[in-house]
């Protein structure tokens, strides 16, 4: 028997001409805001449609008890106040992932009140329709937004919306969300459907939330029954597609042509390397001058303010408080902003274009080898820029356990700020060569820690989940301005509003330690006195109090480490603080210090973000303890082994 031809299925051609069911005149009346829920597969165009409907103004919170984003927005349509909800992208209502549970719950909670718009991807119609059928089982008012018609057409498929509506028994509105085509019609149709629902509900006086099927479990094998239902659903979908889709001769789509290169088993890798190099080059090249400029402006503003205060007769400490406390605190917050903005922009653009999914597939084998996942690759790579966006980039992993595994190892990858400090200090500790070797050793060490730790976590706390991660490869799209800039801005704003209090207080505390008592010489400051006291903490690693204090202050922000060391070692003699530092420890202890500096808890912002992204203070605390433990052990190990090998401590 001849098998099915590769990837070709040609259902009979129905009559053409896409027109929707007649639009009912929008029944005016109801004052209270109504709710429209957008449901659909990932990449079906929900967010694009959401932005069209709401003008891009989204309020983002988390769904209760989860870290999944809940995006809502408002729109007015012919005197109606509508709240639009962008539900997370899902393939089915099977409550396997958090996203599916949330979408399912939202549909059940709102059934009978809300209108559900299922965004169907016309170029991936079977999968979309399966979800449509599932949603229609639980929601009484459903409108299908048949999106991506341009893509479907380019792939040689004509979808007959009218036939589709007939087969489904639901209104279907053709749409090209990217170009805004069909949106007015969708709004009219949605409003009409909701009015109709209200009339029906009004007459019947009922409001039962649940639909049939979905929640009825058979006593012995609910699971097998669910599979049987899914099979039946897809069979029905096949029949519907056969009636509503006409397939012209299949051509290679633009995406397929790109993938011949991008997913080539050999050439795909140099291409990926080139893309990543370009992305990181752009990120650093564009953000470094911005960061410097922000720092310079704050310096200027701080000095001017301090001078003004002095002229007005204010005490010296007040000027110092403003300049080195408040404005330095603002600087600590703002220092993140250029990196974050650019990383989020690039990340969203890569995601939106579809290339991110290819990168995940290319590197998956490598990531799998250490117990991680291809989808987490970009998050890990991003961590070398800044750990904060890296942590939020793990959201693409749909299994919570996988996400936490990635989130726990990210802090062990040194961010740009840490790398900068490491470079300066490596040069200081190894003045007579060997610096490059030491630095390379540090980088390998961090990768080794990541691999070793994941292996350990996978065997203990976070065993691999049975459900595979979905690696869908959506067609390529040129990213749209709105889809990229809006989420990036949102991320940056959310970060700043979350973090500024912590960083400001922490910077003020550091200022108080180093600047008080007022008028005292640096050697008499509280910081210097504290250094004497905390020296005991560093004893097991042969670190003196000043190095311990540098580690402690580095917790606020890694950029401050060099500043702290400069203050503490500043008075220690000729050649400047760096030389003083280098002469105060042996290369072996210096190397151990660098390793500990690289591995211990990255910074306050990372911890706060960890808390946010894992959704639990427990995981954040665990991460802090883990990194302290790993850093301490590694430092001790390096010194022990080094001493055994005959190096001086």
């Amino acid at each position, binding site marked *: 028997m001849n*098998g099915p031809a590769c990837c070709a299925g040609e259902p009979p051609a129905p009559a053409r001409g896409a027109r929707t069911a007649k639009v009912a005149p929008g029944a005016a009346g109801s004052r209270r805001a109504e709710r429209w829920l957008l449901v659909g597969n990932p990449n079906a165009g929900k967010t694009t449609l959401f932005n069209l409907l709401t003008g891009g103004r989204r309020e983002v919170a988390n769904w209760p008890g989860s870290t999944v984003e809940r995006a809502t927005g408002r729109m007015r349509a012919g005197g109606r106040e509508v709240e639009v909800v962008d539900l997370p992208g899902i393939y089915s209502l099977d409550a396997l992932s958090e996203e599916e549970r949330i979408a399912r719950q939202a549909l059940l909670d709102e059934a009978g009140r809300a209108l559900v718009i299922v965004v169907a991807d016309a170029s991936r119609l*079977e999968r979309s329709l399966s979800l449509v059928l599932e949603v229609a089982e639980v929601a009484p008012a459903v409108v299908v937004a048949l999106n991506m018609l341009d893509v479907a057409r380019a792939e040689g498929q004509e979808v007959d919306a009218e036939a589709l509506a007939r087969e489904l028994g639901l209104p279907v509105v053709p749409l090209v969300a990217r170009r805004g085509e069909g949106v007015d019609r969708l709004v009219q149709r949605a409003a009409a459907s909701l009015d109709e629902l209200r009339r029906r509900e009004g007459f019947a006086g009922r409001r039962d939330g649940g639909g049939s099927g979905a929640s009825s479990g058979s006593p012995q094998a609910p699971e097998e029954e669910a599979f049987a239902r899914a099979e039946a659903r*897809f069979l029905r979908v096949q029949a519907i597609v056969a009636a509503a889709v006409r397939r012209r001769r299949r051509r290679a789509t633009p995406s397929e042509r790109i993938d011949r290169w991008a997913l080539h088993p050999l050439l795909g890798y140099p291409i990926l390397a080139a893309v990543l190099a370009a992305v990181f080059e752009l990120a650093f090249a564009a953000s470094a001058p911005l960061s410097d400029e922000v720092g310079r402006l704050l310096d200027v503003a701080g000095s001017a303010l301090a001078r003004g205060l002095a002229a007005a007769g204010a005490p010296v400490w007040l000027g110092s408080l403003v300049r080195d406390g408040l404005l330095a605190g603002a600087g600590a917050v703002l220092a993140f902003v250029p990196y974050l903005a650019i990383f989020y922009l690039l990340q969203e653009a890569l995601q939106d274009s579809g290339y991110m999914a290819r990168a995940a*597939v290319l590197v998956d*084998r490598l990531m799998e080898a250490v117990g991680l996942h291809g989808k987490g690759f970009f998050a890990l790579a991003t961590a070398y820029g800044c750990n904060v966006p890296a942590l939020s980039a793990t959201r693409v992993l749909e299994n919570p356990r996988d996400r936490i595994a990635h989130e726990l190892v990210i802090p062990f990858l040194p961010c740009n700020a840490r790398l900068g400090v490491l470079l300066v200090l490596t040069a200081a500790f190894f003045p007579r060569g060997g610096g490059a070797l030491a630095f390379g050793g540090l980088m390998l060490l961090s990768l080794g820690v990541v691999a070793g730790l994941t292996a350990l976590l996978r065997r203990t706390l976070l065993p691999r989940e049975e459900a*595979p991660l979905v690696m869908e490869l959506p067609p390529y799209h040129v990213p749209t301005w709105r889809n990229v800039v809006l989420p990036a801005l949102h991320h940056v704003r959310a970060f700043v509003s979350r973090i500024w209090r912590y960083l400001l207080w922490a910077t003020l505390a550091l200022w108080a330690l180093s600047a008080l008592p007022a008028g005292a010489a640096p050697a008499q400051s509280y910081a210097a006195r504290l250094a004497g006291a905390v020296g005991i903490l560093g004893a097991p690693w042969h670190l003196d109090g000043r190095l311990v204090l540098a580690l402690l202050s580095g917790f606020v922000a890694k950029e401050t480490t060099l500043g702290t060391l400069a203050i503490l070692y500043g008075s220690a003699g000729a050649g400047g603080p760096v030389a003083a530092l280098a002469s105060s420890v042996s290369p072996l202890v210096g190397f151990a210090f660098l390793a500990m500096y690289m591995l211990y808890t990255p910074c306050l912002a990372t911890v706060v973000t960890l808390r946010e992204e894992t959704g639990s203070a427990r995981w954040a605390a665990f991460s802090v303890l883990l990194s302290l433990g790993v850093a301490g052990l590694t430092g001790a190990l390096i010194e022990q082994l080094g001493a055994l090998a005959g190096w001086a401590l």
Partner: protein
Amino acid sequence: MDALIDGTQASGGALPSPRAGGGEPGRELPSLTDLRDGQSARVAAVVGGSGLRRRLAALGVLPGAVVCRRGSMPAGGPLLLEVRGALMALRRRDAEAVRVEGAGGR
């Protein structure tokens, strides 16, 4: 040609296992990993744990579906599969669970 529609009849394609008790139905069939790049076949059964089966079912990887193997990543990396008009990747150990019949095509 009309492979997708043909799938109707193939839905009951899982053969009873020859080894009573021990094996699941379909265990003896070849899996997606046995296909060559460019070959397609019809899913006969998905064996394995329920998490795996449920997630694959959500993507339409169910008995009767036609799957085309479009490529594979080197060194035992994931397989590229076209299922129900969409392209996706699946790790080999997961693809192992998808048992197929009627392999054909290029």
